């Protein structure tokens, strides 16, 4: 009895100490008003809403492991003779950057693990951002008020690509050096200033003695610093806007349904960090990544086949591999179109998906806030565009790995290159049409389901001998969910002559908008939702269906 009492008082004492500390902090930082708004903030449950967390956590993992790696890595291109423990490189000349990477891998206990976690987490970070971005895209979560956050996310993806590329170049191994050489060639192709840019970046002729140190400060300070700022802004906006949710009973555009941050999401999201870290640690225990010791130190006169960048740069590799070798010489100058055109398409591929939300907003002219997510099938043109973009990206990835496609599928590398050259234009167009058809088919099926119910698979024999399949009517929840989406009317230009008979000027932009709007929301682009009348007619007409 007495022990429990003393326990109680002790725990109360603990609570009081905690409260006192919080009060102290509130008096200086004003944390209570912040906590009031956020402590019990509601987050909806859906696995796809956790993709962003995968990115956030892998970013944190990258920062943690990256700091550790800086303790041992020497960002220097001074040539040294290797005398570490990896035998097949003994006595070889190499840069200090490469030799310190070998030391991390072979002589620092746990160094190899941290290196592998860092690199795996980087690949997963970018893959996570890609999928997260596609989730936001296909569910229309980029619509007002979240356009700015879409752009923040996009910038993070692009910056992540370059942070990854500069990091991949740091060990100064044969593979990454080849990648840097490619970058130098691409910079040289820039008209007028290319040669100067290259000399300034490399401190003279390639490879020089400077690029590792310069990439190092870009990789560990400049880019991650910007990214950290963007991530904070991204998260603040997520909190401020509150999370989107899928349509469903009780979920409206004016509420958000889910579990409170404290305690459920604190535990789920906090726990998820450990789950992500745990999975990546296990992967790093069993799968080798970027085994630089097999690649050897960089030498500009040596190369290995399978010279590819990490996956996120793969599409640019595809662009450069399939481009025909166009070169124009005039007045003592060379325009290296064979390299410069891919260099220009590279940002274009990315920007085309980034600007989409603004184009769609312009076409719909919709100024309302949207917090209910679309099912991809209910926005067929957007979905078709997104899938076409992914197919485009994928075709370029195939181009970037054409040699491996050739060896693993016993094909001719030339044939694959030609396939990619044609596919670059053809595949997205075909995929667009097919996806749109599939979306419309799914819309029709939804309508069917609403009107006729779910096919149960139970066959019933009627008294007069006819066999029918029993359809089970949907619940009110399902009926509501399937018909909750908004359907736009195609925009019309309106009469070109006003009531006084005076011709009204219709701008090109206006015409284009009407045309696009028709392509988006015309009869061929969406299946009208079932109406109350249709439903009543069917259900009362032949109830036993």
């Amino acid at each position: 009895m007495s022990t429990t009492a003393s326990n109680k008082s002790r725990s109360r004492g603990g609570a009081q100490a905690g409260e006192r500390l919080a009060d102290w902090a509130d008096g200086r930082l004003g944390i209570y008003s912040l906590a009031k708004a956020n402590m019990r903030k509601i987050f909806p449950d859906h696995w796809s809403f956790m993709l962003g967390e995968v990115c956030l956590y892998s970013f944190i993992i990258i920062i943690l492991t990256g700091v550790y790696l800086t303790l041992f890595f020497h960002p220097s291109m001074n040539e040294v003779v290797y005398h570490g423990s990896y035998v097949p490189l003994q006595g070889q000349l190499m840069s200090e950057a490469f030799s310190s990477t070998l030391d991390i891998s072979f002589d620092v206990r746990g160094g190899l693990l941290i290196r592998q976690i860092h690199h795996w987490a980087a690949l997963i970070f970018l893959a996570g951002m890609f999928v997260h971005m596609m989730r936001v895209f296909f569910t229309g979560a980029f619509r007002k008020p979240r356009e700015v956050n879409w752009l923040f996310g996009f910038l993070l993806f692009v910056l992540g690509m370059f942070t990854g590329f500069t990091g991949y170049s740091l060990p100064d191994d044969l593979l990454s050096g080849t990648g840097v050489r490619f970058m130098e060639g691409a910079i040289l192709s820039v008209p007028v200033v290319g040669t100067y840019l290259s000399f300034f970046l490399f401190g003279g002729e390639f490879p020089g003695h400077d690029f590792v140190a310069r990439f190092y400060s870009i990789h560990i300070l400049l880019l991650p610093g910007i990214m950290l700022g963007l991530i904070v802004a991204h998260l603040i906006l997520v909190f401020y806007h509150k999370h989107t949710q899928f349509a469903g009973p009780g979920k409206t555009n004016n509420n958000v349904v889910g579990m409170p941050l404290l305690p459920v999401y604190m535990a789920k999201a906090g726990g998820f960090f450990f789950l992500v870290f745990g999975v990546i640690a296990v992967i790093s225990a069993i799968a080798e990544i970027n085994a630089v010791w097999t690649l050897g130190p960089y030498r500009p006169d040596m190369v290995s086949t399978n010279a590819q960048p990490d996956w996120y740069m793969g599409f640019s590799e595809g662009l450069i591999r399939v481009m025909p070798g166009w070169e124009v010489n005039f007045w003592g100058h060379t325009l290296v179109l064979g390299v410069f055109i891919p260099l220009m398409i590279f940002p274009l591929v990315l920007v085309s998906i980034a600007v989409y939300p603004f184009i769609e907003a312009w076409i719909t002219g919709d100024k309302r806030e949207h917090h209910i997510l679309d099912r991809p099938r209910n926005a067929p043109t957007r979905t078709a565009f997104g899938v076409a973009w992914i197919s485009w990206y994928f075709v370029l990835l195939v181009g970037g790995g054409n040699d491996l496609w050739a060896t693993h599928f016993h094909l001719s590398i030339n044939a694959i290159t030609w396939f990619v050259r044609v596919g670059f234009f053809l595949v997205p167009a075909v995929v667009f049409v097919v996806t749109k058809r599939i979306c419309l088919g799914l819309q029709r099926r939804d309508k069917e389901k609403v009107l006729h119910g779910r096919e149960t698979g139970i066959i019933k024999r009627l008294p007069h001998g006819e066999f029918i399949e029993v359809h089970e009517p949907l619940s009110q929840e399902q009926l509501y969910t399937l018909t909750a989406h908004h359907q736009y009317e195609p925009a019309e230009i309106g009469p070109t002559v006003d009531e006084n008979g005076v011709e009204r000027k219709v701008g090109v932009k206006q015409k284009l908008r009407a045309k696009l709007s028709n392509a988006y929301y015309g009869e061929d682009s969406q299946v009208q939702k079932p109406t109350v009348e249709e439903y009543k007619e069917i259900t009362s007409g032949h109830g036993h269906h």
Partner: protein
Amino acid sequence: MKKLSARRRHPLAAVVVLLFALAATGGLYTAFAPASKAKADDTAQSLAIEEGKKLYLVGCASCHGTGGEGTTDGPSLVGVGAAAVDFQVGTGRMPAQQPGAQIPRKKVKYNQAQIDQMAAYIASLGAGPAIPATNQYNPAGADAAKGGELFRNNCAQCHNFTGKGGALTHGKYAPELQGVSNKHIYEAMLTGPQNMPSFPNTTMSEQNKKDIIAYLNEVNGEKSATPGGMDLGGIGPVSEGLFAWIFGLGSLIAVAVWVAARTAKAKKS
């Protein structure tokens, strides 16, 4: 005949056919295989050439011509040397089965004695590199690190940094080097089979070749270590990217599904 066709679906039919086929192959083999006992030393060479010629006429002449002069189906073998024969036949590339972008490595058709006889015959047609002696390719004591540098300069551009192979133009490829014997690697460098350029001893010394073999044994042998874990094919970032997507992101999404899923509800009573 009717009886036979009626029983061809019998469960044991396949076994019987297989036995017949094996017996037939064995019979043919013994019929064509020469007696392997060599005679006295001075006549051994000419005898080997004689036997090699017989084997050649049966197995090779249809493409390479009856005198090794070559036809439209196969190049001339005059002057290719014994090392080339030992490599081509010893790795199963010859005799070729079908035309294609490249003749693949496959099961070896002849035993070493027969290969030596054919090699002797081809060597008699014109001077060329001889089959190397063990001390020429034995990598014991060679410098694997120097071999690595030589490998990256001369070989990795086609065969990949640890000899995993790679693509060439129009469906041709540089094969994987794992499981290729030291002798065959030496011979390949020496003779330049198919589209591979040769690396004669005048430009790549015997010691250079030993170093390269030592390097390959170190990084591409049966017991070569991949300290970080599975090497994922050892082909660089493409397979790593695939792995990151499928197993990395895949398992994280599986975990996310579990985190976000609804907990099982108690059954309504």
